[in-house]
């Protein structure tokens, strides 16, 4: 594995983007399909290289060190470009390129006939390239650059159907809300740059001794500094919290979760990509990347854990009542991301990344499944679905696998990773961990319930008409084609179902001696190779495993009772009220705890629009504009003064020169 091979994982999709935008779109009209092929080939090669990088990292016992390349050196400011190839990077590469590859293949069917076909594949290529660039980044400037690029790409893709006002609004919302978090991240970078320089310079010899560049922007050096205790006082806490603010925005953690459900306005494969492998996992990745820095500060760690726990619980509760299948999945993602944050916050680095890994596969699978359902029924509203099991068996069974996996049923992938997190939270009980353990268990129950609620409403019972039955849709029965999706869409779902079942064995806490060539605790051993990370593999915790299994099964059971056995009256499913939820609580949750109203009505309009914006507007008109006008007036007229001497008369110019010389001399004699 050479450095060039690692770069090409990033460069290939980037070139695909450039090629599609600059060659195919302008010059090869009518050959749209080529865009798909170009993107798929680029990402497929990247995927193979990613697998290889995992093997290389494993065989090299941890980190492959490639010195970074100087990019700009201006005085004391030195910026470089480099790759940090460690176990985390390698695992993320597989997740990103693998999911992206499946999404690209699937999109060929889903986006078939869309006028923006080439543009779509161009954006997805750029999205993948940015995320891979983020994962590979060796320094903070690079990370920030790709971080913003990922944000931009998600903006472009959520607003892909820009003729829909709701898509534009969702894209703007996603961009602006995540920008709030990014601002914290930027502050953290600036704070680190302002305060870290001296610390790093003082310990330069230690960095050299450890083979680090000792640059304040270098990620390995920052982590090394944190681990060696160079950060005195509150520096680590402030930087960690700033970084976490960025992660809260991107990973849609409470209270910046509001953008993610709206992001459903984009094409469904994009949702799969955003939810499984790119945008939202970037936040988890960022915290994991700077994990040693977080570990230094117990304040930051507790903050991360509590935020994660609240998010997991809060989002899962909203997932219970949504009718839109994609919104159920969206809240499910927010909730699962909360799980990962929670795990990071209690120091369970390995389980968090493991859950990220398994979640990527089953969540991508579930989203692709919802897209497949939409392909047939024309709607995402589960009230108008039902009975699709017999029409779409492939979709049904893969969706079932995904649901079982996310619910945490033995022996599917989700069981192992979720169990690790729950076990970790039960293991070292202190006040915070007991709280988050309870949050995690309640959220796990809700997860099992809402996933099977979605499964039963969508696939079981009688078909309720699809888009044609939806009021005000303007569609008729011609828009509903009850049949299995084309092979190009089914194939990625089947492929993704495989890791959704077996990915858990990579952690393998059970079989001593390993499964085939995979040793016991492979995943934690892999992550553990880089010494700065605390991960430990421990045997399966039967107590935690039985609790989480009981919880998952009872969640599924409750859903079964309500939606299949109809033990509880749900005759009003179509009308929209559930009798098992009393009115006010139901309404509170269904309206998403009124967060949208709070942000838009109270904060955005009342506070910012009527308060801050008006004040700024007044200042702008009466102070800034006046100053601007004066400067403008001065500028225009002094421009005229300067040019009045431009008479075109060569004598005047000569005189001008002489006057210039004399005035310089006078200045020198007087002041010199």
């Amino acid at each position, binding site marked *: 594995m050479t450095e060039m091979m690692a770069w090409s994982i990033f460069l290939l999709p980037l070139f695909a983007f450039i090629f599609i935008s600059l060659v195919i779109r302008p010059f090869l009209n009518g050959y749209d399909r080529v865009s798909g092929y170009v993107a798929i080939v680029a990402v497929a090669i990247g995927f193979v290289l990613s697998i290889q990088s995992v093997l290389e990292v494993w065989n090299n016992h941890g980190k492959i060190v490639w010195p970074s390349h100087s990019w700009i050196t201006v*005085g004391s400011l030195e910026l470089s470009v480099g790759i940090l190839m460690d176990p985390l990077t390698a695992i993320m590469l597989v997740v990103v390129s693998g999911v992206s590859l499946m999404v690209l293949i699937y999109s060929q069917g889903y986006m078939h006939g869309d006028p923006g076909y080439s543009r779509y594949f161009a954006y997805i290529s750029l999205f993948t390239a940015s995320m891979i660039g983020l994962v590979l980044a060796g320094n903070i400037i690079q990370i920030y650059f790709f971080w913003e690029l990922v944000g931009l790409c998600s903006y472009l893709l959520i607003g892909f159907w820009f003729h829909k006002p709701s898509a534009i609004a969702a894209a703007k919302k996603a961009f602006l809300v995540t920008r709030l978090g990014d601002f914290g991240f930027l502050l953290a970078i600036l704070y680190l740059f302002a305060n870290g320089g001296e610390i790093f310079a003082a310990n330069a010899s230690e960095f050299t001794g450890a083979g680090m560049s000792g640059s304040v922007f270098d990620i390995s050096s920052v982590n090394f500094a944190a681990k060696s205790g160079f950060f005195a006082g509150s520096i680590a806490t402030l930087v960690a919290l700033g970084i976490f603010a960025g992660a809260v925005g991107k990973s849609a953690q409470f209270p910046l979760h509001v953008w993610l459900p709206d992001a459903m306005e984009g094409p469904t494969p994009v949702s799969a990509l955003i939810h499984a492998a790119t945008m939202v996992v970037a936040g988890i990745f960022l915290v994991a990347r700077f994990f040693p820095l977080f570990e230094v500060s117990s304040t930051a760690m507790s903050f991360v854990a509590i935020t994660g726990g609240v998010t997991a619980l809060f989002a899962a509760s909203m997932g219970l009542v949504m009718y839109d299948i994609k919104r159920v999945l969206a809240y499910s993602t927010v909730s699962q991301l909360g799980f990962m944050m929670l795990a990071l916050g209690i120091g369970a680095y390995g389980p968090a990344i493991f859950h990220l890994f398994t979640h990527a596969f089953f969540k991508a699978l579930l989203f692709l499944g919802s897209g497949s359902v939409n392909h047939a029924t024309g709607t995402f509203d589960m009230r108008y679905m039902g009975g699709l099991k017999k029409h779409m068996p492939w979709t049904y069974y893969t969706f079932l696998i995904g649901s079982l996996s996310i619910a945490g049923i033995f022996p599917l992938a989700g069981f192992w990773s979720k169990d690790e997190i729950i076990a970790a939270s039960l293991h070292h009980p202190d006040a915070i961990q007991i709280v988050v353990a309870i949050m995690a268990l309640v959220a796990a129950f809700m997860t099992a319930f809402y996933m099977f609620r979605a499964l039963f409403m969508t696939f079981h019972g009688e078909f309720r008409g699809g888009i044609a039955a939806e009021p005000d849709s303007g569609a008729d029965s011609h828009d509903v084609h009850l049949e299995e999706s084309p092979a190009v869409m089914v194939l990625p779902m089947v492929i993704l179902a495989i890791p959704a079942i077996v990915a858990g064995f990579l952690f393998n806490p059970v079989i001593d001696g390993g499964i085939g060539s995979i040793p016991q605790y492979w995943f934690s051993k892999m992550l553990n190779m880089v010494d700065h990370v605390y991960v430990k593999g421990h045997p399966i915790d039967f107590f935690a495993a039985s609790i989480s299994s009981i919880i998952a099964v009872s969640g599924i059971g409750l859903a079964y009772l309500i939606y299949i056995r109809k033990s509880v009256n749900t005759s009003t499913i179509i009308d929209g009220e559930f009798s098992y939820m009393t009115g006010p609580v139901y309404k509170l949750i269904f309206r998403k705890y009124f967060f949208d109203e709070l942000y838009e009505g109270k904060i955005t309009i009342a506070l910012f629009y009527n308060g801050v914006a008006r004040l700024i507007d007044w200042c702008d008109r009466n102070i800034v504009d006046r100053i601007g006008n004066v400067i403008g007036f001065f500028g225009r007229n*002094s421009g005229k003064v300067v040019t009045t001497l*431009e008479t075109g008369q060569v004598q005047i*110019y000569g005189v001008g020169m002489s006057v*210039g010389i004399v005035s310089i001399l006078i200045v020198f004699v007087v002041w010199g």
Partner: protein
Amino acid sequence: MDFHDIKLLSPEISMGALGIIIILLDMITNRKGVLATVSVVGLAVPLSLSLYLCGLVDSDSEGKLSGVYGTVLIDQFSLFFKFFILGTLALVILSSTDYLSKLGRLRGEYHALLIFSAAGMMLLPAVTDLISIYIAIELTALPLAALIAIRRDSHSTEAGIKFLLLSAMSSAVLLYGMALIYGFTGSTEIEVIIERIAYLSTGSGPFGERVILLAVVLIVAGIGFKISVAPFQMWVPDVYEGAPTPITSYLSVASKAAGFAIMLRIFYMAFGDIRIDWASLFAILSAVSMTVGNLAAVIQTNIKRMLAYSTVAHAGFLLMGLAAVGTQADLFETPMGPGSVLFYLVAYAVTNLAAFFVIIAVVNSTRSNMIRNFAGMGQRAPVLAIILSISMISLLGIPPTVGFMGKLYIFSAAINSGLTWLVICGVLNSVVSAYYYLRVIRTMYMLEPESDTSIQIGIPPRMAIGIVGIGILVLGIIPSTVMNAAEKAVIVFF
């Protein structure tokens, strides 16, 4: 003059020969298009000779070759400018093929004069004797005067005469300054002048160091004319407007670079020791220049005049690098100042050439230099419009263009030398300049085109525009190669 001397001067000698060949060829052939080809291909000879010298300098233990009775010095610094001038010249010749089709008989002279003038510019950074400096400057200026007037209409002729007269006046001022230096030090060789000045600045000379003040000011004024610094800038708009546009682009880039080269050579080599605070003089001139240039550019309606004032403003930015001599602690020990000047020259060259090349192509079709005639270029000539927009953004200094890197570098150099006030002045001036640079972009994209005919453009200008257009972005993203070359070139001063 032995073989060693000829070797040192071989790039310039081959340039002279190439010019003569062009004139002879012009007499015997009717296919005038071949002249441009011969010129560009012929530049391979001075280029390879410069590369050969580069190899000699690299293998030399001191990194410099001196010859011709100590008047010529070949080092990294002079080689940097040889390549700079050769590159600029090749691009200008490529870009002017369309323009020249209306010049008729004079195409041979056009190419020959350009090459002669470039020979002077290549020589200028390499000479270390005041007399030779003067001769190189005149070798540069006289062909330029003829080139400015080559269109032979009233505008062009007027511009040529103005340039000639004012150039003569500035030469007189410069000569007066040199004569004073000779009077005080007794030598015209920079190496000797360095020693005598060191002696004078101990205060034991006949008049003390104050006597050099007048000489310094006169030299700054004389060269200040060439590099279009305020208050010696008044000729610039008239000449830029009247001259054929390819010559304007050449004047704004190559001529300015040669001027800054000799400025660096004289001040960093010879005047480093005198306690006259010429760095502050440059700082003040810098502030005056960028302010005057930008304010005057705001009200221009003719794009060539606008870029003329813009060039005055950029001369101000470049002077900022010249003023950045370091703080008291590390005076003349940091190569950042002169290094940033060299990088900025490259940045400005690539950017300004791109702007002018697009203007040449557009004006060839529309026959008007007015900014309003660029309306709707976004539709009429999308590629040209994008490149002109990129070059405007680069002139303004916004990433990811090379103009941003140039400003970043030069501003950092100034900050490191404690010139914070000047940097603030520079940033404010950049803000002012946004008004007139962005107005061009606005005109091209937001106003309706006056006709919908597309812009016809030949292959050589396309190549030139492509090279500089891509160069703006490539150097804006990966500036380190040129930055390293610039710092390596100025290391000879330290």
